[in-house]
Structure formats: structure tokens, C-alpha cells
């Protein structure tokens, strides 16, 4: 079972829900939580853990071999991203612009642009209290999140079988990195706040989930702080609201210290139980 936890925007409680839910579910189930927000991975701050292993991750980019190159310029013609440029008697490659399509490399008549790995980030796997935690972190200066997300997803698929519930803390937004993160998920849980900003971001997230044809439901964070806009929108659109996590200064303080909330606030444990039941219902074949 793959459960993606997403939101239209960052800071609505994605990480709060991911970490608390992982720990809560781990009391009875095998769980792996993966932080796919590779630009700003944060889940790890809320989890006590011991490192199991760390892997450098790389992607493939062309490297110029001047010895075989005839300066025909074919590579420059075929790169749609202007990542290979012929400058005088030299071929220059700009790895930041390269999308790793292999066109220049495979269409070069003289094999002068072999593809070679270039570092882009680090994947770490840890044992947390009762569950496994995987995090990938993009190196600062790397601009493309999608290749690292794709590799991280593949890593999780390789190492964990179907019996493990896989939770994914997704990147914010509605663009490529989010699509990459949720396209293989069985269910998507959208988290939002009951405010006008929250409502607007939720409506974008709902559009994304619908476009991908995903089963999805909503969790409202900081319930009580705003208005009924989000609840009304959900009932109008026939969207299931799984839980309402109550707003309190105490919750904000626990968050600020990087602490889990449900062990200290029983109402939050109750709300997590409802999310848990929804996931179990989906695992047992749909309608819960």
C-alpha cells in the first residue's frame, strides 16, 4: 500500500501528519516513511533515528572526449535544452541544464560524449522508533528534483515488499516533483488549513489528484483557527474529510521542538486513528 501525503503548498502540516502517522501506525504495522521533499527534507527532524546506511546518488550526463570528437556539432543540434554547445574547437557541456535524455551521446557519430554519473544528492536510510525512514536530499546547487525523487521511489520499491505500508511525505506544489511523487500512489491524503489560503491551495491539490485519477481524501490541520470554507468545499465536492487536527499553542510548541504530537495530545491520537481506519479500509479493498 502506497500512501502519498501531499498539499498544494508547504507548511500546512504535511510533515506533521507524515511523521505522527508513521509513528502511530508503526504500533501495529510494518511501515516505511520516505521524505520525497528532496529540496527541503524535514521529516527527519521530527524522528529519533539511527542511521542504517547512506548512499550518494548520481544522474547521468555526457562528458566530452576530445580525442574522438571531430567537432561535427551534431550534439549541439540534438540537445533541446542547450546543454551541449560547440564553442570554437571545444564542446562544452552544462550539466545543470542536462535532462539526461542521451540524445547527444547516442547520436554522436564518433562516441565522443559518453554518459557518466554526476553527483546530485544523498539518500539515507535509518531505523526510527518502530519503522524505517528513508530520506533523499538534493545537493545545494542542483536544480532538478525529479531524477532524485524517481531514484528514491525505485529504491523503496526494491527494498520493501507489498506487506509494508509505504508513506510518502511529498514535495509541495502542483508541478513535476509532486506529480512524480504521487503518480504511483494508491491513495493520496491532502492536508490543508481551514483558511482562505488553505482552501485555495487545497483546490489546486484536488485538481492535481483528480487529473492523475487518484483516490484521495482530506485532513484538516489546525482545526478551529479559521473558518468553515474548507469543510464546506469538501462537502460540496463530495470529498471525504478523514480527520481534523485541533489547533493549539501546545501543538505549535511541540512542532517547534521537533517533537511528535500524538503522544502528548490525546485528541490528535484519536484523529490519527480515523486516518488509520481509512488506510486499512482501502487496503481491504476500497470503500471503508
Amino acid at each position: 500500500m502506497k500512501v502519498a501525503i501531499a498539499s498544494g503548498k508547504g507548511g500546512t502540516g504535511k510533515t506533521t501528519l507524515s511523521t505522527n502517522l508513521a509513528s502511530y501506525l508503526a504500533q501495529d504495522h510494518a511501515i516505511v516513511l520516505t521524505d520525497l521533499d528532496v529540496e527541503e527534507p524535514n521529516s527527519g527532524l521530527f524522528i529519533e533515528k539511527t542511521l542504517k546506511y547512506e548512499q550518494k546518488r548520481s544522474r547521468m550526463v555526457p562528458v566530452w572526449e576530445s580525442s574522438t570528437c571531430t567537432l561535427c556539432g551534431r550534439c549541439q543540434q540534438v540537445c533541446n535544452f542547450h546543454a551541449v554547445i560547440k564553442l570554437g574547437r571545444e564542446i562544452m557541456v552544462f550539466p545543470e541544464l542536462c535532462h539526461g535524455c542521451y540524445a547527444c551521446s547516442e547520436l554522436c557519430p564518433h562516441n565522443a560524449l559518453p554518459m557518466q554519473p554526476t553527483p546530485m544528492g544523498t539518500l539515507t536510510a535509518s531505523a526510527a522508533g518502530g519503522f524505517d525512514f528513508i530520506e533523499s536530499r538534493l545537493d545545494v546547487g542542483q536544480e532538478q528534483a525529479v531524477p532524485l525523487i524517481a531514484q528514491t521511489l525505485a529504491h523503496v520499491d526494491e527494498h520493501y515488499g507489498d506487506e509494508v505500508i509505504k508513506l510518502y511525505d511529498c514535495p509541495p506544489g502542483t508541478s513535476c516533483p509532486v506529480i512524480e511523487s504521487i503518480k504511483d500512489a494508491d491513495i493520496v491524503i491532502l492536508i490543508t488549513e481551514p483558511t482562505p489560503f488553505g482552501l485555495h491551495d487545497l483546490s489546486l491539490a484536488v485538481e492535481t489528484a483528480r487529473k492523475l485519477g487518484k483516490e484521495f481524501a482530506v485532513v484538516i490541520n489546525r482545526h478551529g483557527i479559521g473558518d468553515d470554507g474548507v469543510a464546506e468545499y469538501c462537502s460540496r465536492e463530495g470529498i471525504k474529510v478523514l480527520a481534523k487536527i485541533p489547533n493549539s499553542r501546545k501543538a505549535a510548541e511541540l512542532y517547534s521542538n521537533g517533537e511528535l504530537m500524538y503522544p502528548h495530545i490525546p485528541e490528535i491520537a484519536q484523529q490519527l486513528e480515523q486516518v488509520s481506519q481509512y488506510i486499512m479500509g482501502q487496503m481491504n479493498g476500497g470503500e471503508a
Partner: protein
Amino acid sequence: MKEIVVISGKGGTGKTSITASLAYLGADSMVIADCDVDAADMHLLMRPEAVSSEGFTSGVLAVIDQSRCIGCGRCAQACRYDAIPYRDGQYTVTPLDCEGCGYCARICPVGAISMVDQLVGEWYLSTTRTGASMVHARLGIGAENSGKLVAKVKNEAKQAAQEQGKQYVLVDGSPGIGCPVVSSLSGADFVVLVTEPTVSGLHDLQRVYQLVKRFQIPAGCIINKADLNGEVAAQIHDFLKNEQIVHIADLPYDEAFTRAMLEGKTIVEVSDNPIGEALSDSWLQIQTILGE
């Protein structure tokens, strides 16, 4: 004309509410640019009315002409993104997976594949309720946020500011550390970092500041909900001191932010809270730093 960019690493720190407050305070002297094109929220507080709008195309997308395709499958083999699955007896491109590299079109032996321009979003030039102009955009769902739309929004805002003889462009920057935020930052004269004293807030601040430092842009910091966690707040203060980042203001934890938002207002417009004054002072400080 000076460009002020507000960023926070990650959302949820109050960045947009604070940017909107600065926009309200400096309404007569600026053009606003909402570069958080992926999840733009500024319009909810500034209520812009579009004066003009334009589609934005960026990159291309492969399309297979089925009447010419001979089903050899070479395109599918060449595609590194698995964007051309064989389904119902034919090869078709999955638009969400296509990166637009054009490799398939180059090697198709019968020329059945063409690359078409991709409409990725729309941008608007608007007038807000304060009278200031605002440039904002909407990125299509699943579109690539390569930073090009962000760059477009910024350039249009700069041009508008020049035409109108305004002193500032105020940019609500993009989240993360990837292409969009790089585009948001390029050319900035001053960066306002908005953070909160949480372990994740501090972490994101440090990470995004590495980028700011690389661009060598002078920066200041506003700490929102500063009294939420004294220990982390002290760590942030130390960080600012070490990095010589101007400490602009500490704002207290106050649900007035949300109350103002519910009324569709910025916090400087609602009374009985200490934040409005702190932000007015912040705006003065920023202007002084920029030497106006």
C-alpha cells in the same frame, strides 16, 4: 529601481502574509510580483483585477501521428522517461512523463513524431485594491516549474515598475532551493528571509541562505512567531549574527494573522495587535538599507 525578494525556504512561515503587508505599506512606491507561481496566494489578500493576460509556453511535447506510425517502437526504446508506452495496439505519448527532449522525433524512421509547443501557464498584469500594479501567474497542473515563468513574472514586473517610475519591485519568492527560487533571486538587491523558531524553520533558513550567499545578495530576516520557542529563536539570532544578516524584526505568535486573512486583509490593516507596528518599522528599515 530596487528589487526586494521575500523567501522562506518552505511555506507556512507567514511569508505571503508578511509580503502582502509590505505591499500594503509601500503601495505607492512599488509593483508587486508573485513568483510563487506553483501555489500563488498573494491575490487572496491583494485582490488584483487583471488588466491583461497572456498564455505562457515553455518547452515542447512529443505527439505521434498515428496515421504515419509503422509501430517499430524505436521511439519507446530511445525514451529515457518511459513516456511512450505501447497501449491498445499503438505507441502513444504520456504528456505528464514527456520531458520534451525530442530524441524520439529525431530517430523516428518515418517522421511520425512532431514536437509541439507546450502551454504551461498564464500570466497577468493586474491592478490591486491598493492601486499598485501586480504581476502574477498560474502554472498549469503538472507543468514543469523550470523557473522560466518565474523569470517572466519578474521581468514583466520590472518593466511595469520602470514605466510607472516606481522605486521598488516587491517579489513574493518561490519555495525550495531549486530552479524557481534561483530565478526569483537572480538580480535581487535585497532578500528578506522569513522564518519561524522551529527546528524545521531554522533548518530551511540555513539551507536557503546558502543560495542567497552564493548570489552575494544582502539579506535581512524577519522571525515570525518569535516567542514560540525561546531556545530555537536564540539559535536563529546566533545564526543571523554569524552570517551578518540584518535582524529586521521579531514578531510574536499571534492568531491575528489568520483573523486578518479571514477578512481578506493584511495584518497591518487590523487593529489591536503588536505586529502591525513591527512590520511598519520593518518596511522603514528595508527602505533605509536600500538607501532611499
